[in-house]
C-alpha cells in the first residue's frame, strides 16, 4: 500500500499560493489555464483519497473556470461602447491572493514569535511575601455589615438592657484612641467593651464616619475572613 502524503491547505487561497510558488509563477500575471488545471487535479486527488472537500474549494474552482473562459474571449469581440481598458478578469483573484499572502506571512512571523516566547519564563505567582498584611484586600460596606450582624448576634443575650449615653463623637474619639497605640485592630475587638445594642450600632457608625474622614481604613486578607482596622 502506498501512503500518499498530501499537504494540508488552510483553504483555496492557500492551495493557489502553493501552486504559484511551486511553479514559480508571477502572482501579478497568473497563467489561469495552467493554474486551473493543477487546482482541479488537486481536488480530484482529494476526492480519490476520499478526503472531504470544503465547499470553499469548489467556489474558487468555479471562479477559476469563469476567469479562464473570459480570458479566452478575443479582445476584438468587445461590443461597441464597452471600455477598451476592460478590467483584467484575474484582477479580483490576484488582489485576494495578495491580501491573503500578506496575512499568511504575518502568521508565519507570529508563529516564530510564539515559539520563541514559549521558551521564556517569568517568576511564578503567587509569591510569598514576608508579611501577610500586604495581601490585604479592601473591605466594603457589604462585608462590614455582615460582620456587624455577626457581632450583634453574638452579643445577643449577654448584653444588659440599659440606656446608653455614649455619643457618636465620643465613640469616634474612643476608636481613635484605641488605634493610636496599635497599627491595626481586629474589627471584632472594637466591640469588646460595648454593653448594649445601641452602643454596638454607635460604634459601628463611628467607624463608618472615621472611614469617611479617611482616618482609618478597613482591610481583610481575603473576602469572608477577619476584618482589620488600620490607622491611615
Amino acid at each position, binding site marked *: 500500500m502506498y501512503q500518499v502524503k498530501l499537504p494540508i491547505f*488552510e*483553504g*483555496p*487561497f*492557500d492551495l493557489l499560493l502553493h501552486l504559484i510558488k511551486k511553479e514559480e509563477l508571477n502572482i501579478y500575471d497568473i497563467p489561469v489555464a495552467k493554474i486551473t488545471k493543477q487546482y482541479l487535479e488537486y481536488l480530484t486527488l482529494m476526492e480519490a483519497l476520499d478526503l472531504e472537500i*470544503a465547499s*470553499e474549494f469548489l467556489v*474558487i474552482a468555479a471562479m477559476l473556470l469563469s476567469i479562464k473562459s473570459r480570458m479566452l474571449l478575443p479582445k476584438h469581440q468587445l461590443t461597441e461602447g464597452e471600455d477598451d481598458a476592460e478590467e483584467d478578469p484575474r484582477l479580483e483573484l490576484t488582489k*485576494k491572493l*495578495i*491580501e*491573503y*499572502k*500578506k*496575512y*499568511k*506571512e*504575518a*502568521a*508565519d*512571523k*507570529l*508563529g516564530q*514569535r*510564539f515559539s*520563541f*516566547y*514559549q*521558551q*521564556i*519564563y*517569568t*517568576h511564578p*505567582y*503567587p*509569591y510569598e*511575601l514576608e508579611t501577610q498584611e500586604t495581601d490585604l484586600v479592601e473591605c466594603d460596606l457589604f462585608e462590614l455589615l455582615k460582620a456587624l450582624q455577626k457581632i450583634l448576634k453574638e452579643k445577643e443575650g449577654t448584653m444588659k438592657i440599659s440606656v446608653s449615653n455614649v455619643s457618636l463623637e465620643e465613640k469616634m474619639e474612643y476608636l481613635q484612641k484605641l488605634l493610636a497605640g496599635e497599627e491595626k485592630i481586629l474589627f471584632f475587638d472594637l466591640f469588646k467593651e460595648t454593653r448594649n445594642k445601641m452602643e454596638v450600632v454607635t460604634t459601628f457608625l463611628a467607624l463608618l464616619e472615621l472611614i469617611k474622614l479617611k482616618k482609618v481604613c478597613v482591610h481583610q486578607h481575603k473576602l469572608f475572613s477577619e476584618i482589620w482596622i488600620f490607622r491611615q
Partner: protein
Amino acid sequence: MKDHEKAKKIIEVLLFVAAEPLSLDKISQILEMKPPAARNLIFELKKEYWEAQKGLDIIEIANGYEMCTRHEYSPWIERLKKQRKENKLSPSALETLAIIAYKQPITRLEIDNIRGVNSIGVVQTLLDKKLIKLVGRKDVPGKPLLYSTTLEFLKTFGLPNLSALPQIDELIQ
C-alpha cells in the same frame, strides 16, 4: 548607595515580584518620579543585566515591563518543570489571529473573506484561549460582532504593544 542606584534596585525588586507586566506609569507612581526618568532606569537595569550576561532579562511586553528568563535557558527549565509549556496554535489559528491583529476591530465575515474559508471554529478557539475578545457590533445590517486581540495576545507573542507588529505591507516585498 545613591538615590539613583537605589531606585534602580527598587525597580528590579518590583519587576521580580510582579505577577504581570508592570506599566511605566505604575512603576513611576510607586517611585514617585517622572515616567521618562523611570524608563531610563529600566533601560540601565536591562543593560546591566545584559553586560553581566545574566540568565535573566527585562523585556518590554504587553504595555509594560517584565523580568523573564533568557530563551537559551529553556532546556534546563524544562528539566525542572518536567514539561514544556503545552500551548499549541494551529496554522489556521495563527492565520486568523494575524488577520485580527492587523485589521482589528474586524467581523467574522471579513476574516472569512480574507482567508477564503469559514473561520467559525478557529475564532471560538481563539476566544477560548483569550487571545481575542468581542469588542462590540459593527454598524452595518445584521450588526455583526467585532473582534479584537487582547492583552494576553501581546503577552503570548512577546509584543510591547500592537504597533510593534511588523508592517504588513513590507512582509511580502
